[in-house]
């Protein structure tokens, strides 16, 4: 499986993996799209550098639009551009877009099927020191309820790069959820990516972990530890597309393991875990442990401190896997 996905040869050696943030994948892919697709335009609301839109801005100033701190106008302008044939990429922090401009996203973009790509940076706890106001932990919930909208949360730099490229080719609105902090790059430029397709990063038989975003790498490390020390065979599925969900890959795995841990830097209400639970409840009722934020805001701190405090480390994942394996046996 590792071979078919062309994952890094140092998959289980985190110190050997280079690190970049998924927002860097956006910046680099957008720059590339600027060169290859003349219809691509980019907009930002006073956050050019930290969303990495500045690379495109410097190379293609005529196709770059700085709208100021005005996220409602930002997404409305993008809708107008899309309805006139452009492919606008709209980048801001997710708490502002789609957080502040959800009504505009709903009506100007989704209802009109406007071909707008919404880039939500600074999601999850790993935003760190800026604290709760800037840590988007609700964005999956508010985007996946919108008809016509595709929702993607890439796991690392290369996956973000590929998701942005795929979004440009996809006809219709797409939301891409990105992170600020550098994280291990465990996929490669050759790893296949398609919207709506999950990736079985590691096969296993006893428990399925399904996650999205950079946290999925912690799940891989946890799975390896569990295999070594607890003789638990854990399947790890990366689910970068939250909507539409790859139900087939999910059901194939759970038909085998009959126990699930979901993992996301997001509220457990309404996120990936909820999407997984909806599918399983209807097709294959299964014990699930939901790892995520349990109805609380984040706070200031270093990214690794926050991940520890809010139970997102490999050891917390191992605990959840053991717990759901025990529930299955009852």
């Amino acid at each position: 499986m590792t071979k078919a996905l062309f994952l890094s040869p140092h998959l289980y050696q985190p110190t050997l993996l280079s690190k970049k943030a998924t927002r860097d994948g956006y910046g680099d892919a957008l720059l590339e799209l600027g060169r290859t697709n003349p219809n691509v335009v980019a907009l930002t609301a006073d956050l050019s550098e930290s969303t990495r839109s500045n690379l495109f801005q410097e190379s293609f100033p005529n196709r770059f639009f700085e709208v100021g701190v005005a996220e409602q106008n930002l997404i409305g302008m993008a809708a107008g551009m899309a309805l006139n044939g452009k492919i606008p990429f709209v980048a801001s922090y997710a708490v502002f877009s789609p957080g502040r401009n959800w009504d505009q996203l709903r009506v100007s973009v989704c209802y009109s099927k406007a071909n707008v790509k919404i880039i939500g940076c600074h999601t999850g706890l790993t935003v760190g020191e800026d604290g709760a106001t800037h840590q988007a932990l609700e964005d999956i919930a508010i985007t996946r309820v919108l008809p016509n909208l595709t929702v993607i949360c890439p796991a690392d730099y290369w996956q973000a790069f590929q998701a942005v490229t795929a979004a440009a080719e996809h006809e219709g609105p797409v939301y891409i959820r990105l992170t600020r902090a550098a994280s291990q790059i465990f996929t490669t430029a050759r790893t296949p990516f398609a919207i709506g397709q999950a990736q079985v990063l590691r096969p296993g038989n006893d428990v399925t972990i399904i996650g999205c975003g950079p946290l999925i790498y912690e799940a891989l490390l946890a799975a390896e530890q569990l295999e070594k020390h607890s003789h638990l065979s854990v399947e790890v599925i990366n689910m970068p597309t939250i909507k539409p969900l790859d139900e087939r890959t999910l059901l194939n795995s759970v038909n085998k393991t009959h126990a699930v841990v979901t993992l996301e830097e997001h509220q457990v209400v309404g996120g990936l875990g909820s999407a997984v639970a909806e599918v399983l409840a209807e097709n294959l009722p299964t014990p699930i442990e939901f790892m995520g934020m349990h109805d609380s805001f984040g706070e200031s701190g270093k990214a690794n401190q926050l991940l520890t405090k809010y139970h997102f480390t490999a050891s917390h994942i191992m605990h959840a896997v053991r717990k759901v394996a025990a529930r299955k046996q009852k």
Partner: protein
Amino acid sequence: MDSAQVDPQIFQLQHRALLIRQDIIKMLAHAHSGHTAGAMGMADIFAALYFSELNYRSHQPRWSDRDRLLLSAGHICPVLYAALAQAGFFPHEELQTLRQLGSRLQGHPSRTYLPGIENSSGPLGQGLSQAIGMALVAKLDQKNYRVFCVLSDGEHDEGQTWEAILYAGQKKLSNLIAIVDRNRIQIDGFTEDVLPLESLADKYQAFGWHVLEVDGHHFSEILTAFAAAKTIQDKPIVIIAHTIPGKGVSFMENKPEWHGKPPTAEEAKQALQELNKL
């Protein structure tokens, strides 16, 4: 209205506006729901737009060089539907399906449903931003089409409207023409009681727009403003159209309670009788 004038173009537009008003009354009475006053008040402006000013091909609604008309205040869509039907975008008899299950004439307009609709609207404040996006694309693609956006005065309560006004002024978008339906009513009463907007003209001017004010029922003023808008090179243009909500029907004029309700069958009959006397 300038009924004393004999200018044949104006005479034709007056007749067109009458037909639009009749359609609005019939549609709303048939639908038993919808917004009457704003739609009636904008009939003259829409007659001037669709039967004099706008460049379009009704048989080819997405013709790339067409002028774009965005309706930001979606609730007055009966006036847009009536104008589009009369301009040949869809069969006239379809007007009677307004707000019914399966109709392309949704309660608030949807771009994906009906030919001629450029933007989906309803929630206020969203149209001008989209119009700016379209005007920027016209400049980027070096196209000559213009982008018109019809706003209500009430939706100037929305912050997004001002975000858009600020942006367009700064970008000097002279291919953008906003038309404000200054009818001075909104759902909860008169605009100057709910959240005063005056001086609206000064505000637009301060944000870098070229401001024109017209009597929204006086065709020679409307056409003169449209002609003047074409000469402006370095600013977006706003035409503040002073209109009478419910215009043409005595018992509807200037009554906030007619903002959001349709006429009953009896009221519609009376309204049509009044209109026929104009």
